[in-house]
């Protein structure tokens, strides 16, 4: 699994960080998403899928 985030779209909701803290973080001020690892470990993949589904900005994509 390979993950991409679109920082332009991200509204800083932080849903992704709550669901998959090992994969996503947020910037200090604006809360824009920071991708910690673009190839998440198997145990984090379900979390990533859930984050894709709930991200209100449709800013997370699984690209491979």
């Amino acid at each position, binding site marked *: 699994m390979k993950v991409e985030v679109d920082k332009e*779209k991200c*509204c*800083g*909701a*932080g*849903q992704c*960080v*709550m669901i998959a803290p090992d994969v996503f973080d*947020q*910037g*200090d*001020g*604006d*809360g824009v998403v920071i991708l910690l690892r673009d190839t998440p470990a198997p145990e984090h993949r379900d979390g990533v*899928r*859930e984050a894709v*589904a*709930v*991200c*209100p*900005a*449709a800013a997370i994509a699984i690209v491979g």
Partner: protein
Amino acid sequence: MVVGAGAAGLATVTGLRGNGFEGPLTWIGAEAELPYDRPPLSKEVLTGARTPDQIRLCSPEKVAELGVDLRLGTTVTSVDVDGRKVMLSDGGVLPFGSLVAATGVTPRTLPGSEGVHTVRTLDDVMALRAELSPGRRLIVIGGGFLGTELAAAARSLGTEVVLLEPEPVPLGLAIGAEVGTMVADLHREHGVDVRTGPGAAVARWHASRGAFDGVTLRDGSAIAGDLAVVAVGSVPATSWLAATGIDCAAGVRCDEFCETAVPGVYAVGDVSSWYHTGFGAQIRLEHRTNAGEQGLYVARRMLGLTSEPFTPVPYFWSDQYDLKIQAYGVLRGHDEVRVVDGTIVDREFVVLYRRGSRLVGVLGVRRARALRQWRAQVAAGAAWSDILATT
């Protein structure tokens, strides 16, 4: 069957398929468009920073992949709960086993405001955008989130803007007078003519040769304008459920599992009013994140994958010029606001909201990380006295 092809409907459909539901799925949406994201409408789409194509939530390929019978441009006009079928605007009749209402809300209008812009759909915002240009003057009626965002976006296009809010402070009820005043100041700095208080309510609408040309306010002042937009809240889209007997007085009334009094009929997103066991109250949220979470929850619930009630911590944000406001909890109806980090004048802060003896919400500007740390305490409804002891 899912009725309503917005964010909540999409989350329900993807949630059902993603959790292994392989049965037939019908999805009906009144708009001709595939689901798109609404928050950017009053922000980047109005300013032109994003095109309509950039706010799509779902592609035709995705619909095919989901294996759903999607009928766009079709409205459900009524539901027969005993016969388990819905009647469509095109005369069709379709059966259902379970039904999810995801029909959102429609803008409220004001007496006499017929023909004045409102903003809910992509078409609405494109129509408004087509009329905005430097030198023209827009009158925004309503200083809530939508009105203030529209004012900010219009200003950045060089349009002159008058913002009318009959409460003393824009957003005052939603996020408190302190933060609301900061937002009003921000708008004034950007050249918006902000008028507040009971006198700023519209008393009369003016038109010349059929075209809008201004309003008279309750305080007697006349304001000339080339166009106006009414942003005074919204009404849940429930008329199609009238014959079901489901209580729709304040949204589609659901229990703690987002199911209505009719077994197998659920409601999600802006239209849903459900019992939040954490807050011990019936609540309805018009937040983008909730639409996604509630859709996913109901999908799981319908498939028997959860026996927990739906108890999210509400989250919303709003963009005003270069400032992003973010909040967790239910802030409306608070009794006290307290700054715990930064200062409001510096426009970098975290504020807490008390209702009764509990913490009910937290709001931040340019402090996303600090803000998120309060989320758990909002979720727990922490005692205000404990919080004061630690800050």
